[in-house]
């Protein structure tokens, strides 16, 4: 049960960091998202993101920082098996579900929906 609380708290706090980057640093959404992904990748490389996932569950896997971590994780896993080439082949291994789903559902939405407002 505790995991729900930590997921809410950690996920919410990561969003607050994003909001502060919007409001205080006056960054565009694209800049903010790119920075968060790179931060997630760095934390993943340092081995700090996996402990956060164990602690906060979806609070750490749902924010976009998790995307950066997953890219590094896939690359490192594959590199362990096949050497340096593995970095290239493994980079999308873990994140494939998210990217494919977003592209496929997004395109279907474009086929079915009309612009609003």
């Amino acid at each position, binding site marked *: 049960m505790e995991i729900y609380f930590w997921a809410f708290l950690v*996920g919410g706090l990561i969003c*607050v960091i994003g909001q*502060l980057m*919007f409001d205080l640093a006056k960054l565009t959404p694209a800049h903010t998202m790119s920075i968060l992904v790179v931060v997630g990748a760095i934390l993943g*490389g340092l081995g700090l993101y996996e402990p956060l996932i164990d602690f906060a569950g979806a609070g750490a896997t749902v924010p976009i920082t998790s995307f950066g971590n997953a890219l590094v994780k896939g690359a490192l896993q594959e*590199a362990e098996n096949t050497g340096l080439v*593995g970095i290239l082949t493994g980079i999308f291994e873990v994140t494939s579900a998210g990217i494919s*789903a977003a592209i496929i559902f997004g395109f279907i939405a474009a086929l079915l*929906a009309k612009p609003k407002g």
Partner: protein
Amino acid sequence: MSNKKKKKLTPTQQEYHDFAKMREPKRPILKNCLWAFFVGGFICLLGQIIQNFFLWNFEFNERTAGDPTVAILILISVILTSIGVYDHIAQRAGAGTAVPVTGFANSIASAAIEHRSEGYVLGSGSKMYKLAGSVITFGVVAAFVIALIKTTITLLGGS
């Protein structure tokens, strides 16, 4: 505007710049952060509920349950985007809807829908990556550099 650019302006332009800055509406930072916290936290809570649902009812483990969870969240986000609800919430929630993976899906779906009048190939097909493109590019380049450094250290016999 950066200080470097500011110096190039004439005194009148500088005066106008300061004036415009003064009249700019103040951003309600605390209110925005509270919205971001609760909406972002709620989306993650929802993710946790979906993840536990997959853990308990299907043969997934802690690691693999993340994939269907993300897919379901993205599906929900795209449906809400299609009916115009997601962007409505996003106006209030700011980063609370942008930072979770649902915001990534929303940026793809809304751009795809917005540009469909330019055709499926030149409009939706290419312009859906307007915002998601930079995220993927910087994520992949950063991941490549980091993985390269780590793998090189390992190959050289480090830890």
